[in-house]
């Protein structure tokens, strides 16, 4: 297995390297782009925290939320307006940006602006989306579907590779445990890492209770720090968290986004746990308890 490193960022923005033995990277922002002012305000606030913590960062926000529970849930600003705001955030703050896309037709425009493109978990085995993501030539943040085993994500990776792209970040955002409930199986990180690509933990979607509140999803935010510490100690290369200045009034994922007032604390813990894990491996040697060969 070759441990690949991916580099996110083109042009004049900061380059974020994600891979084995590298510092933990952070991917975060408000779930949806709510307005230009809000997106800019969040970018500035998160940037300050990341600089203080000393963690490299990719701004995440989506222009179209196609998997909302209700027909009247906020859908987003749309491709044109949303991507224009992301492009301006890149220019203004010099940071790489990522958005998901849920229609293969939006792939080229998304890849033209974004430094990284994200494949939504529910669509993680759709060949047309994976191919569209691959053809952008950008690194791909591929989320493991809540219904997928970690080992079967290899099939999705193969689809991306078949379309000529070898820059993938595989994320866990929880696995369905019966109805309206997710659990995290930490073994998914070493299993997905067997593909050779770096892995990411999506903490804020992992505490989601999918559509548990009738026509919207619930969430148990209180568990975010516990899961973050566990994942960082287990072994991840990037951490994904959605954050908002006013979660109760967030236009998307109000029950799961983390209040930005906690971001510095949680990011600091994640960074420390990650560094401690690397130190331990350096001191005691690599994990080799029951090799398959």
């Amino acid at each position, binding site marked *: 297995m070759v441990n690949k490193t991916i580099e996110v960022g083109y042009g004049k923005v900061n380059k974020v390297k994600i891979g084995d033995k590298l510092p933990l990277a952070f991917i975060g922002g408000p779930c949806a782009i709510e307005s230009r002012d809000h997106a800019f305000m969040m970018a500035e606030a998160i940037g300050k925290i990341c600089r203080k913590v000393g963690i490299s960062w990719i701004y995440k926000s989506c222009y179209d939320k196609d998997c909302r529970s209700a027909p009247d849930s906020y859908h987003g600003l749309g491709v044109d307006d949303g991507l224009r705001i992301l492009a301006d955030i890149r220019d203004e703050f010099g940071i790489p940006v990522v958005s998901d896309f849920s229609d293969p037709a939006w792939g080229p425009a998304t890849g033209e602006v974004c430094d990284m493109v994200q494949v939504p978990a529910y669509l993680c085995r759709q060949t047309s989306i994976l191919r569209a993501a691959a053809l952008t030539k950008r690194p791909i943040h591929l989320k493991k579907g809540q219904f997928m085993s970690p080992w*079967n994500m290899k099939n999705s990776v193969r689809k991306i590779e078949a379309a000529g792209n070898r820059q993938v970040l595989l994320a866990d955002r929880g696995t369905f445990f019966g109805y309206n409930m997710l659990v995290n199986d930490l073994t998914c990180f070493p*299993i997905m890492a067997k593909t050779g690509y770096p892995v990411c933990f999506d903490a804020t979607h992992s505490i989601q209770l999918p559509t548990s509140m009738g026509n919207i999803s619930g969430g148990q935010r209180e568990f975010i720090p516990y899961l973050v510490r566990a994942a960082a100690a287990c072994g991840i290369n990037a951490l994904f968290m959605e954050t908002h200045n006013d979660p109760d009034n967030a236009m998307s994922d109000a029950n799961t986004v983390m209040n930005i007032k906690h971001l510095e604390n949680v990011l600091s813990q994640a960074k420390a746990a990650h560094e401690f894990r690397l130190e331990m491996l350096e001191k005691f040697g690599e994990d080799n308890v029951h090799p398959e060969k």
Partner: protein
Amino acid sequence: MSTQKSKTMLVSEVMMGLDRVPVIKETVILKEALEEMGRKRLGIACIVSMNMKLLGILTDGDIRRMLLRIQKPFSAFFVDDALDHAIDSPLTIAPGDTLVHAVKLMDEKHIWDLPVVDASGVLVGLLHLHPAVEALISNE
């Protein structure tokens, strides 16, 4: 006792051609390797690179031992690269080696099959014990 003819018979005269051997590329998953072994009705698969160099072999016995040792779900096992579970540096033989030497080697190592590779490591065939012994007997 072997006759002069059986003593001089070469591996290349008896080996199975690649069309009859489970030959799989290095990116093939275990489930596909098992299917190919079933189709060709042999307990061995030869894993090769894009330029046909032998990278490893997978045998029924190896798979049996792995199932007992690794204990992960079949769905996880099936999607592993076959190469992950292969023997990296298998015993091989050259097409110009004598059949007597090959059979002695198989007897000594308790194996039923020997991949046949040329001087550059390219797979050119497979020597199976049954036809090898049969050839020696019929030439006595």
